[in-house]
């Protein structure tokens, strides 16, 4: 029983829709810029990947005081993915439709506001929405309410790797009887309290120049940039998967276990390394992490052969939304037979990776997406035509 992808929508610093984002990526644009959502002069990390043009117009106004920006974006992308799938949800049994998203840190900006209300003014200033607007399950909950889906649903948290794990769990739900599952992830923690959390890793770039702030696989790699956004995808078990299918997934935990995750995914997909046409890399953007990833890729595919790309260099990393966005782009790459570029990067040849720095036409049947999470999470997902 195959998990077909029948709908995709994207929200990112490069666009408010799937095609707007994809065109901007292929044209080599970058969505990285000096931070605007909050005063970042207090912080050492001036660059962010923000979705400046996002407004929650189109969402019911009742939802606005009760939802974090992350949830608003997620609701818009989820509706877009359902529309794209052209499934008439009203004709299905609601128990056959599920929602399975990943979360990173929940509705963090909403949480900062409420923490401030509590500590600067008192408990009476904590809103009634706090009990549900920030917790990790909120996007799944709100999407299920908005679309009337009553089937088995869930939420996975595995830092950035969760974006792939959620999609794999969604495919599992189809094998276990759900007919349609909305999956993927959209994340936003664009507030000072979020920035301080990201900065505590010591891995955020301090660059003031957006063109040098996120340079994965480059000798000049100096960290990553925090972004917001992600992608939602509709999976269904019936045969009309216009974008492709989920072929296999593997996940491990621990250092130096990324290659094992890739092997597990290949095994489940019943594919050999030579059947993979492109790798969408995790691209953590620090020298040590880039080297570890290059070694894992080299171990499986050999040095310098398979095309590797990191379009996230144009958007930054948005928690678990990053890998979901990569999966969406991998499917669009299959649709358009074009590998999106890794912008701004001059690949360090000593890493032995064949990094695509421009949009590259190529026959693509199967794409491998990699994601690592802080704490040792390693995930690999293969999608195919």
């Amino acid at each position, binding site marked *: 029983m195959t998990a077909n992808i029948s709908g995709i929508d994207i929200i990112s610093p490069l666009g408010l829709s799937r095609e707007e984002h994809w065109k901007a990526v292929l044209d080599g644009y970058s969505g990285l810029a000096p931070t605007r959502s909050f005063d970042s002069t207090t912080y050492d990390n001036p660059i962010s990947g923000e979705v400046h043009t996002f407004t929650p117009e189109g969402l*019911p*106004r*009742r939802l606005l005081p*009760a939802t974090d920006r992350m949830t608003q974006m997620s609701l818009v992308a989820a509706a877009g993915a359902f529309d794209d799938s052209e499934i008439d949800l009203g004709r299905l049994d609601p128990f056959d439709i599920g929602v399975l998203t990943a979360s990173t840190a929940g509705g963090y900006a909403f949480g900062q506001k409420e923490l401030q209300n509590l500590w600067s003014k008192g408990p*009476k*200033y904590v*809103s*009634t929405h706090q009990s549900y607007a920030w917790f990790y399950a909120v996007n799944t909950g709100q999407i299920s309410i908005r679309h009337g889906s009553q089937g088995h649903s869930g939420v996975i948290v595995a830092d950035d790797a969760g974006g792939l794990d959620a999609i794999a769990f969604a495919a599992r739900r189809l094998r276990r009887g759900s007919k349609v599952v909305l999956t993927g992830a959209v994340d936003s923690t664009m507030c000072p309290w979020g920035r301080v959390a990201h900065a505590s890793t010591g891995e955020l770039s301090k660059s003031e120049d957006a063109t040098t702030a996120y340079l994965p696989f480059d000798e000049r790699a100096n960290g990553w940039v925090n972004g917001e956004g992600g992608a939602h995808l509709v999976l269904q078990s019936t045969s009309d998967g216009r974008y492709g299918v989920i072929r296999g997934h593997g996940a491990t935990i621990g250092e130096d276990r990324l290659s094992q995750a890739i092997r597990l995914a290949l095994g489940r997909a019943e594919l050999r390394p030579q059947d993979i046409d492109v790798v969408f890399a995790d691209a953590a953007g620090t020298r040590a992490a880039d080297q570890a990833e290059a070694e894992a890729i080299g171990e499986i595919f050999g040095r310098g052969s398979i095309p590797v790309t990191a379009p996230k260099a144009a958007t930054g990393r948005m928690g678990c939304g990053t890998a979901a966005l990569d999966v969406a782009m991998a499917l669009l790459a299959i649709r358009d037979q074009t590998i999106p570029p890794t912008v701004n990067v001059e690949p360090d040849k000593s890493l032995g990776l064949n990094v695509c720095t421009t949009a590259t036409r190529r026959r693509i049947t199967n794409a491998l997406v990699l994601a690592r999470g802080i704490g040792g999470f390693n995930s690999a997902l293969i999608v195919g035509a």
Partner: protein
Amino acid sequence: MNKGDAVVTRITMADLKRALEEGSGVDEGVDLDRDLGTSAFADLGYDSLAVLETGLRLSRENDVDIDDSIFMDLDTPQQLLDAVNEALERRRQAS
């Protein structure tokens, strides 16, 4: 909300409308100006959370407490308005 030096003794439906909208938004097609005084919360698209949120805002803005048990019986904005004004009146009489 700072009401300056004046001690508030009474709030109006306009105050309630503002607290309702700020805390819970308003559904498309709902005309609060026209219907707030005469409708039930449910008819205007508000659930018990919205009633709680509105009551919470009005209580803290006016520094009064509305008894938990009263919330069980609040179906209409008029009833909530009356509850807040009764609490304000009790405070005025106590001082």
